[in-house]
C-alpha cells in the first residue's frame, strides 16, 4: 500500500476516534450536571483541559467559562482544531482521499455523518438537541467501526486505521484520567465534606465518559473509588479503552507490518511503563507528571510510525 495512503488512512482512524471521544466527553459532562445538586458548579472548563485545546480558547479564563460557551467551542468552533465539527471534517477529507481503499458504504457513512452534524450543530447547544446529535455521532462511529470489521479486508490499510484508532484512544484515556484526578475535582466548590458524597458520582462520570462503568462494575466489586478507577483505566488488559489494552492492540497490529522494529520498540516501552506503574503511590504524589510523561511517549510512538511508513514530506499539491 502507498505510504501516502497509509498516512491518510491512519489519520482517518484517529479523527474518527477523536470525534467519538469529543462526543462522549460533552455528553457525559451534560449528564453529570443533572446529577449534582444546585450550588455545586461543574467545571465545563475541564473539558477544554482534557482535550488539550486551551490555547485555541479565546473567550477568557477557561475555568470561568459557562456551558454554552464551552459546548460551542467543543462542538462547532472552526478555530478549535479538535472541535467535533473539525475532527469530523478532517475524518471526511481523509476518507475522501482514501475513498478507493475503504468500502463504499464507509465513505457514505462518514460523509452523511459530517453533513448531518454540520446542519444540526448550531441547534445542539441546547441540551435536548445536543443529546440527540451526540448520540448520533457515537452510534455512527461505532457503526463505521463495525462496518470496517465486517466488510473490509483485514489488510494493511485496515491495520493502519486500527493503529490510528488505538493510539488516539490510549492518548484520550490518559487525558481523561488526568482530568479526573487533577482537574475535575477542584472545580467543585466546597469543602471536603461537601464534596465527599459526590465523589462517587464524579468517578462514575469519568468511567461513563469511556463507556467503562458497566465493565468496571463487573471487574471491580468494591464501590467506585479513585484508586480502582485509575488502575482499571490504565492497566486493565481486557477493557478496550484501557490504556494498557489499546497499546497491546497497537503492538499486535504493528507486528503485522513490514519494518516495524522501531515503532514496536517505542510502543512496548510505554506499555511496560503503564503495566508496572504503582497507582496508589502515584495517586499520593506525581500522577500528573507520570501522565504527562506517558503522553510524550505516546507522541513518540506516532513519530516512529510516521518515520517508518509515511512519505518523508507530503507537499500539498495544488492543481492547475
Amino acid at each position, binding site marked *: 500500500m502507498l*505510504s501516502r495512503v497509509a498516512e491518510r488512512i491512519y489519520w482517518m482512524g484517529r479523527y474518527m476516534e477523536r470525534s467519538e471521544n469529543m462526543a462522549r466527553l460533552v455528553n457525559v459532562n451534560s449528564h453529570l450536571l443533572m446529577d449534582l445538586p444546585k450550588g455545586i458548579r461543574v467545571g465545563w472548563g475541564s473539558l477544554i483541559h482534557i482535550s488539550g485545546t486551551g490555547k485555541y480558547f479565546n473567550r477568557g479564563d477557561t475555568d470561568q467559562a459557562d456551558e454554552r460557551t464551552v459546548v460551542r467551542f467543543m462542538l462547532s468552533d472552526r478555530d478549535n482544531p479538535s472541535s467535533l465539527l473539525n475532527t469530523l471534517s478532517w475524518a471526511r477529507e481523509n476518507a475522501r*482521499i482514501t*475513498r*478507493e481503499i475503504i468500502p463504499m458504504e464507509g465513505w457514505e457513512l462518514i460523509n452523511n455523518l459530517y*453533513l448531518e452534524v454540520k446542519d444540526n450543530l448550531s441547534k445542539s447547544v441546547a441540551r435536548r438537541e445536543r443529546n440527540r446529535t451526540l448520540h448520533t455521532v457515537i452510534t455512527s462511529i461505532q457503526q463505521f467501526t463495525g462496518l470496517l470489521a465486517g466488510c473490509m479486508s483485514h489488510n494493511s490499510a485496515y491495520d493502519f486505521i486500527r493503529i490510528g484508532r488505538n493510539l488516539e484512544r490510549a492518548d484520550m484515556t490518559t487525558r481523561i484520567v488526568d482530568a479526573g484526578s487533577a482537574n475535575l475535582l477542584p472545580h467543585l466548590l466546597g469543602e471536603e465534606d461537601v464534596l465527599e458524597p459526590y465523589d462517587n458520582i464524579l468517578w462514575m462520570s469519568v468511567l461513563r465518559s469511556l463507556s467503562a462503568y458497566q465493565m468496571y462494575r463487573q471487574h471491580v466489586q468494591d464501590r467506585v473509588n479513585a484508586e480502582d478507577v485509575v488502575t482499571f483505566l490504565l492497566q486493565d488488559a481486557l477493557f478496550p479503552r484501557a490504556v494498557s489494552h489499546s497499546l497491546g492492540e497497537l503492538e499486535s497490529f504493528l507486528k503485522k507490518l513490514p519494518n516495524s522494529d522501531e515503532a514496536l520498540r517505542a510502543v512496548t516501552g510505554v506499555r511496560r511503563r503503564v503495566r508496572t506503574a504503582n497507582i496508589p503511590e502515584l495517586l499520593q504524589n506525581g500522577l500528573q507528571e507520570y501522565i504527562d510523561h506517558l503522553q510524550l511517549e505516546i507522541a513518540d510512538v506516532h513519530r516512529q510510525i510516521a518515520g517508518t511508513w509515511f512519505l518523508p514530506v507530503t507537499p500539498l499539491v495544488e492543481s492547475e
Partner: protein
Amino acid sequence: MQIDWREYACGDFYDELISSPGNPRKAARHLANYLASLNSDELQERKLSAELAIKTMGITFTVYSDAGNIDRDWPFDIIPRVISQKEWEKTERGLIQRLTALNCFIDDIYNDRKIIKDGVFPEELLADSKNFRSECVGMKPALGVWAHVCGTDLIRDHKGQFFVLEDNLRVPSGVSYMLENRKVTKRVLPELFENHAILPVTEYPNQLFDTLAAISPRPLDFPEVVVLTPGIYNSAYFEHSYLAQQMGVELVEGCDLVVEDDTVYMRTINGLARVDVIYRRIDDLFLDPEMFNPDSVLGVPGLMRAWLKGNVALANAPGAGVADDKLVYTYVPKMIKYYLDEDPILPNVPSYLCNDKKDRDYVLANLDKLVVKPANESGGYGMLMGPQASKKEREAFAQKIKANPRNYMAQPLMALSTSPVVTSRNAEPRHIDLRPFILQGREHHVTPGGLTRVAMTKGSYVVNSSQGGGSKDTWVVVEGDK
C-alpha cells in the same frame, strides 16, 4: 400537476423521448407512461431522493473558480434519456471506426508521416499545433495505440442524425458520472428496470483495466496498474478516485512515484514497488518537470525517460492530444478513408477553418450565425456563441480570429436535440448532448450510451458542468417487452 405528454412542447427540435406532443418514441414508451402515471408529489419526491442519494454517495465535481469550496453536488435530472439498441449499434460501429483511424493517424504522425507525404493532411497544421510533442517522434507504444481512452461528444440535429462534435483524446472525463447516474436511477426509480431491458454500463471499469493491462511492458498476469491524479483539488478527482476503486488499483499522486534507472516505482509501506502501467489524468505538460513544465509539482521527474525507454506504459500516451485539436478534427473523415478505406459512419459537424482564407472570410461575415471555438481548449472555455453574443463581443472576437487564425474554427449552431427534465411543475424539454467513451487496447469497447449532459436552463445550449450544466442517466434499450 402531473406530466401530460400532450402538453409537452417539443418545438423544432428532435426530442429524444417524445416524437410529437402526446406520442412517446417506441423505445421510451414504458418510461413515458410510467412518468405520466406519477402525481406531482410522487414526481417531486423522486427528484428529492435523487438529490439526497447524490449527497450521500458524495458524487461531486469541483469548479475551478470556487476557491474554498472544494466540491459541489452533481446536478442530475431523474428522467433517463433513451436510445434504441438498433440505433446504438450503428453509432457504436462509427465510434470504433473513428478511434481506430485516429490512432493510425497519431502513430503515423510520430513515425512515417505517410498521410502528409501522400498529400492528405497538410504539414503546416502540425507545425503550430499546441498538442504536438516533438519529444514523442519515433516512439512506438504497445499495439500501436496512443489514445486508449477516448470521449467523443455527439449531438443530434433536428432530424435526429448523430454528428460528432469533438474527440477528447487527452484526459477525457465524465465516465464515473455515467456510472453513478445509473446507480442513482436504480435507487430512485427501481420500478422502471422491471419493464425495460436496459443494457448495463457496469462493465466499464473491467474493460478499462483490461485495456490498460494489455499495454504493460512486462508480460505478467497481474501488472501493476495505477491511476495518476493531480490530487484532491482537481475538478475530476472524484472520478480518479472512483475509477481506481472500481478497478482495484492504487490511486497515486506525483509524490508517490519515483524514477530510478529509467524505471517507475511507487513508494509503499514495503518500500519501492515497480509500476507497469499509468492511467494518467494529468495533462502532458505537467507529467514530467524534467522534460516539460519545470515548475510542475504534479508530475514525476524522469517519467518521460522511462516511457520512451519502454519501461512503463502511459495511457493515453503523451502526444496523443495532437489529434484532439479542432482543426485536425475536420480531417477525420479523410483519415478514415485514408487509413481504413471505409466511408465514415458518423458525420462531422460542418466546419470552417479560420486559417483557410475562403472559410475565414465566411466566418467573419457570418459571426452572428456561427459558434467559434479555439482549437485547443476544452470545457467550453474561450468560445463565442455567435447568435447569443452582443455586437461588441462579436467584434472583439473577430479581432482575435484575425490575429491568430490557426487557433480558431467555426461551426453552424446546431439545433441540439432535447429531452424532458423534471421542473418544479411538470416536464419541459432541455437541450442535451452525449459523450460515449471508447476504449482501444487489444480490442475495442464502447460504453452502451454514455454521459448525457443537459443544459439545465431553458433554451440554453451550454451543457458543461463547469458552466451550470447537469446530466441524465442514458439508456440503451432493447426494444420489445422484457
